[in-house]
């Protein structure tokens, strides 16, 4: 085995932009370049399909917030790619489907709220994704800097419109976000919002491999390790599938809850089943407990913590 110890690697023309396996190392293609979480739509902890009518505001696919300000019926679902397909490269498993089954008026919004409003502030970044629709339609976008509760007013940057066809296409948009100089951030709930406006008509829109990265060009979609991506999702939402038990003592019962990862904020707790009437007490970003003053030892099933933006 040999060791190379040099101060710089230069390309044949003398510059310091030499490539390794056709990739030029730079600040933009390192691990974590994609600021979108679950851009590959691998994680659906809340479920893989749901239907909404009229005005809704929900999360289904992890980190993806859907909102309708419409008189419309929308079904969201996880769809599987055919094994071996090459329309969307590198063998993604799933894509996101937004199916507008009826529409009278208004808009549908799909957005990802990226924690920390300073994300790419004052810098150029590039959004890329694959999309198609069952009819020719336009998907538009906008980018909103939200400074948190009690912070400065939102700042909106106009985005691009994308002409969808019935075939998968890769779309890119490069834009510069305003500086946050002079702004006030407050509340601990500031974020950068990457927002898509769905077509205002009956149609079926499919999305895959969404990426937001620094720089003026779209690079290959970043495939992070499965566990890493799940943990990124769990900073905002987790569900403990299975039964959680409390231990009885005297006339009460108590059980600890340990979150899979430290969450963005103290989460809201809920449960799929809580027949014992336990109080679900979130205590902080990484711990909480279930408690019954009557000593119930019935299990709590599907305890979930939600600290989404």
């Amino acid at each position, binding site marked *: 085995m040999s060791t190379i110890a040099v101060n710089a690697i230069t390309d044949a023309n003398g510059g310091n932009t030499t490539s390794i396996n056709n990739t030029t190392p730079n600040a933009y293609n390192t691990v974590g370049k994609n600021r979108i979480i679950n851009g590959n739509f691998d994680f659906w902890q809340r479920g893989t399909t749901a239907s909404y009518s009229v005005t809704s505001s929900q999360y289904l696919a992890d980190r993806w917030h859907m909102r309708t300000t419409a008189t419309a019926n929308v079904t969201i679902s996880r769809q599987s790619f055919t094994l071996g397909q090459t329309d969307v490269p590198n063998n993604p498993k799933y894509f996101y489907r937004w199916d507008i089954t009826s529409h009278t008026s208004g808009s549908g919004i799909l957005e990802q709220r990226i924690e920390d409003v300073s994300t790419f502030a004052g810098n150029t970044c590039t959004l890329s994704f694959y999309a198609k629709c069952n009819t020719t339609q336009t998907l538009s976008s906008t980018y909103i800097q939200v400074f948190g*509760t009690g912070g400065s007013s939102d700042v909106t940057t106009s985005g691009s419109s994308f002409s969808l066809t019935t075939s998968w296409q890769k779309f890119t948009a490069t834009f510069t976000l305003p500086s946050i100089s002079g702004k006030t951030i407050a*509340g*601990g*709930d500031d974020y950068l919002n990457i927002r898509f406006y769905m077509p205002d008509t009956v149609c079926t829109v499919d999305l895959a491999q969404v990426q937001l990265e620094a720089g003026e060009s779209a690079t290959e979609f970043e495939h992070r390790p499965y566990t890493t991506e799940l943990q990124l999702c769990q900073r905002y939402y987790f569900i403990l599938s299975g039964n959680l038990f409390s231990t009885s003592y005297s006339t009460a019962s*108590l059980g600890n809850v340990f979150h899979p990862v430290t969450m*963005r*904020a*103290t*989460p*809201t*707790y*809920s*449960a799929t089943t*809580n027949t014992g009437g336990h*109080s*679900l*007490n*979130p*205590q902080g970003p990484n711990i909480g*407990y279930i*408690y019954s*003053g009557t000593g119930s030892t019935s299990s709590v099933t599907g305890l979930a913590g*939600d*600290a*989404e*933006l």
Partner: protein
Amino acid sequence: MTYKLFNDLEGNTAGVQLLAEQKFIPFDEANRDYQEYLEWLAEGNTPEAADG
């Protein structure tokens, strides 16, 4: 929409429960459910008292 306060083990108010959805919401300014509760309070509403 109705909210009800809930206590921790020591009997101190720990958060508020959204009864319709059985959500237990902490008093954390960064929690979006808590922000919705504050808006509900600002409309002049009052939560139910916690169980004794």
